[in-house]
């Protein structure tokens, strides 16, 4: 059975290795989809609906087509159909420059009958609101009710109760590289450079759309500037790029604008929940009754977690989605979790206070019902509390003196992330000594390219930079899953590991007679192959591979579930300082203790945690899609009024990888879950007034302080 071995035997696994593509990225040599330029390439641009709800009555492309430099124009909606949100696609053009394409789009004549719209969630729920989805009876989906235990008996046993309403806004992904593609046809063969989290998923989607066999579609993603769950298929824009390219008979690049990104490229749904919860005098969380909803725009998925992390025997939840005239939600970094965690961890603090209990102690008493997670979580509580200095928090919230008040809070999260079968990979050893690892995954910025090289290099006794990693391309035909759900490493690493083991075994079999050793006695380390029982029997790597002559060793791998693990627990602590005169919240420090399974690359693991915390901080303090009732438009579709954290907002982040397991897991998502709850609780601890609505902006603080 394959295993990752002991930590003491690892030369590379668990160490800090700089990204193999790091130099290319900082020097600009790395080519993202945005950087791909093909001979004769055209630029695509999409005409989008300026209104939130309308029936399209006519589209006239003739003026656009007549503009010199325009090579193709296509409608993207049929007359008679409805557009249901600002930004929905109406038509598209391809032209020889981006400017001409944009000018051409403005020449497209389109007529529409405007319909009543609704962009406010509360209004959308009202009777008589404009109906948004044909497949729903109203704008609110049928609630999903879940009941465990005996909720009434639970409340009867409760000594204290909390009733509260929590709200989190719609957050957009804000990928640094916007969604986009370069599409190129050669007869009936389509090649697409895509900014995607799933080259194979995108291939399949395009193949189906254009009714082509899969092997006539190639998708390439060499480098990728962030997806966070919003880039799993070609989307309307990818299909449009390919359609324009076919019509124009030339490659087409079509990248979304920053505004498009906010309007149409996905978002994290909002959350509004009313909760009543009870606990017993001895600190048992006993009853939880929650009713909530969120909006995924015209999309249906607006779920969130709750109850979450903590064990409560009696609970009843009622959750639904509310449709509004806004762009559809898409998966976003731990879908459903950050919003649920923010509400749950706020609630836990509120209950603890009613019980006059230390919030950490209350959590310890009611922690995770999963035994492994609970064991880890209890250890994480201790580590994190020590690092933040939990004893320094205000025993009486808001009791600090002075204009600037500090507070400490905490939050929790859990995630799956174990990966699964479905990845094919090959590790090839050439006679020259060169080693290639090939698989159909993609590096969406998480560092999987470097991790693959580390695993192969560890196995073959080489250095990571000795391994050529070929990923982000469907052409070799080695499929892998989309990079989502923090599943990439758990899906890919076991296959790479077993492929490298198989290739090594084969090489050892080849070499053993030549060095007069038993193949089972051979080891690879330090650029050499040697016999463990007799260190004099040693040959350099290249000499050994030289014996392959005209042969090449090329081995596949198997996914082995014993090499990975899922269901991770995470705990975060936040210290904040609030200027009570200005309402500004400065996060001083975040301690993130994250169950990481086996850490492969400690450097990129910490980068993942840092990035996740920063994203969680933006969710807590700054980010919000703001819809305007009067116009049906998103009023902040930019990065001026949709505020993401900048350098001044980013605190000291202490990442503690809780890595007691020797099995791999993904941690792209879990460390973004607890941050907002931890910050919200720290804010309360600082000022003694609870803000139950994200983002916690100065206006809310000042209004709360009165």
């Amino acid at each position, binding site marked *: 059975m394959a295993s990752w071995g002991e930590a003491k035997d690892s030369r590379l696994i668990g160490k800090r290795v700089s990204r193999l593509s790091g130099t290319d990225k900082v020097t600009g040599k790395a080519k993202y989809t945005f950087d791909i330029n093909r001979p004769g390439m055209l630029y695509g641009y999409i005409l989008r609906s300026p209104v939130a709800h309308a029936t399209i009555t006519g589209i006239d492309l003739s003026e656009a087509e007549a503009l010199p430099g325009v090579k193709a124009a296509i409608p993207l909606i049929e007359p008679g159909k409805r557009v249901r949100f600002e930004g929905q696609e109406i038509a598209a053009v391809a032209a020889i420059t981006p400017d001409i394409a944009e000018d051409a789009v403005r020449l497209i004549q389109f007529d529409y009958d405007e319909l009543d719209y609704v962009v406010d969630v509360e209004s959308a729920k009202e009777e008589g609101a404009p109906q948004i989805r044909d497949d729903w009876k109203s704008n609110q989906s049928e609630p999903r009710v879940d009941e465990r235990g005996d909720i009434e008996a639970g409340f009867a046993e409760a000594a204290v109760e909390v009733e509260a309403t929590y709200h989190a806004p719609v957050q957009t992904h804000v990928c640094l590289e916007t969604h986009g593609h370069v599409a190129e046809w050669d007869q009936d063969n389509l090649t697409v450079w895509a900014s995607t989290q799933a080259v194979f998923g995108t291939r399949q989607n395009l193949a189906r759309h254009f009714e082509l066999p899969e092997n006539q579609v190639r998708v390439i993603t060499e480098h990728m500037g962030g997806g966070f769950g919003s880039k799993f298929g070609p989307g309307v824009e990818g299909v449009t790029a390919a359609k324009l390219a076919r019509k124009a008979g030339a490659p087409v690049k079509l990248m979304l604008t920053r505004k498009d990104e906010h309007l149409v490229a996905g978002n994290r749904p909002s959350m509004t929940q009313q909760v009543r919860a009870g606990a017993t005098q001895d600190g048992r969380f006993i009853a939880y009754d929650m009713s909530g909803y969120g909006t995924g725009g015209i999309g249906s998925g607006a779920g969130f977690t709750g109850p979450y992390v903590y064990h409560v025997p009696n609970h009843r939840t009622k959750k639904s989605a509310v449709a509004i005239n806004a762009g559809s939600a898409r998966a976003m970094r731990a879908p459903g979790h950050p919003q649920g965690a923010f509400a749950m961890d706020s609630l836990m603090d509120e209950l603890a206070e009613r019980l006059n209990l230390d919030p950490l102690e209350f959590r310890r008493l009611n922690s995770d019902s999963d035994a492994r997670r609970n064991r880890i979580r209890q250890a994480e509580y201790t580590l994190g509390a020590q690092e933040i200095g939990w004893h320094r928090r205000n025993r009486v919230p808001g009791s600090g003196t002075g204009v600037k008040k500090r507070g400490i809070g905490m939050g929790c999260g859990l995630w799956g992330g174990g990966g699964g079968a479905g990845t094919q990979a090959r590790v090839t050893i050439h006679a020259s000594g060169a080693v290639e690892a090939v698989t159909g995954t993609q590096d969406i910025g998480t560092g999987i390219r470097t991790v693959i090289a580390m695993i192969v290099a560890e196995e073959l006794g080489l250095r990571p930079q000795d391994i050529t990693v070929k990923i982000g391309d469907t052409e070799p035909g080695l499929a892998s899953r989309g990079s989502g759900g923090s599943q990439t490493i758990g899906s890919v690493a076991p296959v790479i590991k077993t492929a490298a083991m198989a290739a090594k075994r084969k090489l050892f079999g080849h070499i053993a007679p030549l060095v007069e050793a038993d193949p089972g006695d051979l080891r690879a380390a330090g650029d050499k192959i040697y016999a463990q029982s007799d260190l004099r029997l040693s040959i350099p790597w290249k000499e050994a591979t030289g014996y392959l002559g005209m042969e090449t060793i090329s081995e596949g791998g198997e996914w082995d579930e014993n090499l990975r693990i899922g269901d991770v627990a995470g705990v975060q602590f936040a210290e904040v300082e609030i200027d009570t*005169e*200005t*309402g500004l919240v400065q996060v001083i420090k975040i301690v993130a203790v994250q169950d990481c399974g086996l850490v492969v690359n400690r450097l990129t693991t910490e980068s993942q945690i840092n990035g996740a915390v920063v994203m969680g901080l933006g969710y807590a303090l700054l980010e919000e899609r703001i819809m305007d009732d009067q*116009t049906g438009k998103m009023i902040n579709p930019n990065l001026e009024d949709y*505020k993401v954290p900048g350098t001044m907002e980013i605190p000291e982040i202490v990442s503690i990888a809780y890595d007691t397991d020797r099995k791999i897991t993904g941690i792209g998502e879990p460390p973004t879950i607890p941050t907002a709850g931890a910050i919200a609780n720290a804010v309360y601890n600082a000022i003694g007034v609870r803000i139950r609505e994200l983002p916690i902006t*100065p206006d809310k603080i000042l209004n709360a302080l009165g």
Partner: protein
Amino acid sequence: MENFAYINAANVEQVPSLMSDDWSETKMIAGGTDLLGELKEYIETPKKVINLKSIPGLDEIKADASGLTIGALVTLADIAAHPTIQRHYTVLAEAAASVASPQIRNVGTLGGNLCQRPRCWYYRHPDIICLKKGGDTCYAVEGLNKYHAIFGGGPVYIVHPSDTAPALIALGATVKIVGPNGDRTMLLEDFFILPDVNPQRENVLEPNEVVTEVHLPQPKAHTKSTYVKVRERGSFDFALVSVAAAFEMNGGTCHKANVVLGGVAPIPWRSKEAEAALNGKGITAAVAKQAGEAAVANAEPMTDNGYKVPLTRNIINRAAMTLVH
């Protein structure tokens, strides 16, 4: 953006003749950090853009017995880093340093900072024709007005976005304007106009007039000044509220206080009430607090911007206490 002709101005005198007397026909560009956004969003679609950066001599800071003259093309970064300004006109150096990001301060000019258009999200939206753009509704009135005016609003409720303008007004600056009939000089305070005078403009400029320089008088002895700006995002943001305070001190007594607010009104808002509460007083904690309270006594908050009232009050108090400690 729409195509336009790009014309390099050779000298200041030439500018009025290059400019149309119709606002929509021509625009001036210096750093371009404001205009480019307007062009890209089709807020403005001029036929000609007149480049001012080609004019020699407007990017200098000159000191003489009368004070300091700052050319309209001096960058915000240069103002923030200028030793004399840092020392004698502190509020201006601090204000310039607080604008946007380093990249923008490196190209953004003083003239542009004074003449920039509002940041109101209705105004900046390409598909919304609001009152400021010639429509008939100020959407902030019934809509989302978190960032809008608590003083001087109506019929539009934008806030003036400049950081340097409150600072310069607090220092008694004058501004020189060149137009088709020669030049004129006025107090910067009189340069800005309220929307009830003209809802579509923020200052007295005619379409063919250009700001060429700002003059700061010699600071009175014992003048101390500071700029306090509160923004949601520390690294790059416009002010929620800011205060430029310049006090002429006489021992422990404030002989004359200049208090000018940013982010609260369609123009840089001189708070005569705060000044009256400070003039002739020893600046104690109680007096500073009183000044803040006096400043907001007549505030007219909208639905979402009530927080600006305590915020304004508190930072006036803070600025005053900073200057005496």
